């Protein structure tokens, strides 16, 4: 039997909607992205590697990727904690904090950038006490990590929250009745269930922080080889009209982005199969889709 492209349906509008979708997608996304890879092909392998692996570029990768990794790990730990506190406990202001968690999504990056710099500058509210003990919070690599932590804050919280909300207390009661302490219960019963979601949030936070520009450049200091993030390097090369150089570094970032996108998709598949296992184990039908997982995928820059 021949394989059909589309299953039979009486719903109209398939041709129109798919056609427009593909047209718009090509126009806005695919053609410009292909232009980038086409432009790169004008470079020889040697030229490409010379730019992409130059000391300045490597220093910027170390800051962008390394800083994002540290920030994502901070967000993993604190995000889990915040998600737990928001789901399990009642305290004054809980609803307020719950809505505020999304602030880094909604706030424009330039606004976040100048606000964070003002707070952590040597004469700022948090900058001054740290400066007095000799720690430079702004215009340093630490400042970059702080900004990246801000940017990635909602991701782990919002991926873990729905999973925590759907967890059955019965499992914990069973563990307690078998003699487990609270920490043991958390480590052996709860953590495995929320781990896929937490790792998804971690990967999302990491991916977001790597490409981040607006929130970071104000607090970074932007000194080449020391506090220059990769997106800034691209812009500097553009300003010097070094289009091939800028393109080469952009391609490195694009490849990293696609790899991360793939990783996140795989993690989300693992996470949703884990939830189906949990649901089946608890004898429930598949839970109705909620807005929250979708809301996590966005990111304002």
């Amino acid at each position, binding site marked *: 039997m021949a394989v059909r492209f589309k*299953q039979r*349906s009486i*719903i*109209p509008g398939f041709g*129109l*909607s798919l056609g427009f979708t593909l047209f718009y*997608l090509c126009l806005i*996304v*695919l053609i*410009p*992205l292909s*232009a*980038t890879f086409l*432009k790169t092909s004008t470079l020889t392998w040697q030229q490409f590697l010379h730019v992409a692996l130059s000391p300045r570029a490597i220093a910027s990768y170390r800051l962008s990727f390394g800083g994002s990794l540290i920030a994502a790990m901070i967000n993993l730990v604190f995000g889990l*904690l*915040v998600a737990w*506190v928001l789901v*399990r406990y009642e*305290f004054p*202001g809980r609803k307020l904090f719950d*809505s*505020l*968690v*999304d*602030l880094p999504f909604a*706030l*424009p*990056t*330039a*606004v976040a950038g*100048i*606000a964070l710099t*003002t707070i952590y500058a040597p004469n700022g509210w*948090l900058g001054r006490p740290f400066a007095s003990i000799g720690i430079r919070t702004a215009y340093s690599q630490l400042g970059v990590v702080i900004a990246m*932590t801000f940017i990635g804050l909602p991701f782990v919280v919002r991926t873990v929250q729905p999973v925590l*909300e759907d*967890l059955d207390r*019965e499992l914990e*009661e069973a563990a*307690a*009745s078998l003699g487990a302490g*609270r920490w043991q219960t958390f480590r052996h019963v709860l953590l495995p269930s929320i781990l896929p979601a937490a790792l998804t949030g971690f990967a999302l936070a990491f991916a977001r922080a790597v490409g981040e*520009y607006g929130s970071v450049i104000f607090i970074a200091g932007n000194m080449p080889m020391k506090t220059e993030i990769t997106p*800034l390097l*691209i*812009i500097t090369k*553009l300003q010097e009209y070094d*289009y091939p150089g*800028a393109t080469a570094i952009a391609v490195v970032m*694009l490849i990293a*982005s696609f790899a991360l996108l793939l990783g996140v998709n795989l993690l989300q598949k693992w996470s949703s199969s884990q939830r189906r296992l949990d649901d089946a184990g*608890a004898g429930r039908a598949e*839970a*109705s889709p909620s*807005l929250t997982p*979708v809301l996590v*995928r*966005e990111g*304002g*820059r």
Partner: protein
Amino acid sequence: MAASIPWTIKHAAPGRSNHATKATTEPALVRWSLIAVAVVFLGAFLLLPLGVVFGSAFEKGFRFYINSLSEPDALAAIKLTLIATGIAVPMNLIFGVAAAWAIGKFDFIGKSVLITLIDLPFSVSPVVSGLIYVLLFGLQGLMGPWLIAHDIRIIFAVPGIVLATIFVTFPFVARELLPMMQAQGNDEEEAALTLGANGWQTFFRVTVPNVKWALLYGVILCNARAMGEFGAVSVVSGHIRGLTNTMPLHIEILYNDYQFVAAFAVASLLALLALLTLVVKGIVEWKTRQQLAEQATASGETRQ
């Protein structure tokens, strides 16, 4: 009958036997320490920046605040932001609806590839998003010579800014609408069609009311992101004061000129927009929960 009722109730409130007992709660000391740590963390990272924005904006008084906003360059920046957003959001709205309809209501080969492609702009760094348009339309770009010959300026002019804004806000409406449309299923649309409605009637009178909250939220998000976009617009704009500066770029200029209070004044407008976005999100979540609960009880009743 009696046996089916517990199942439907559980289905309406998924999975919660949430009765907290001594066995499933931490001792009070642990609880309050965790709460304290979370509150300090959130306060430092969320409340403090908000306070700084509004506090610094009004540092020199209300008069200065209004003056900063009515200064010609600031007004031009606000106008350009509104133009770019006014074009980008409706276009991405139409695209989002079309994509959600095609993907949500039909089954075809290559669906997941399409979804991944639509997600691409999420994963691309803003600076790279701007760069790809420079590489296409810039002086040294693929279409550069053709554009110069026809005296069309895209990069370092308003069209480039609009294009970059469209790119970075591309997936928002589609990604919000899609799960809603998939969850709604095809039943109601098929019923409408059998009753004689044509495609457009079905769409506007059956589909849209069901997904209106997700649609609203997608538009609000798209709008917030479009107004606040910095990196991509920075690359394509040319930073010409009064001509190709959006609000975020204008904030950067003011800040780098050490005009901190004026910078925060403009920033406070965007921060207000962000808070409004959060409020709308709360409303949408509440309304969606209501809607899903109503549908669950309705389907529970018919299941008897």
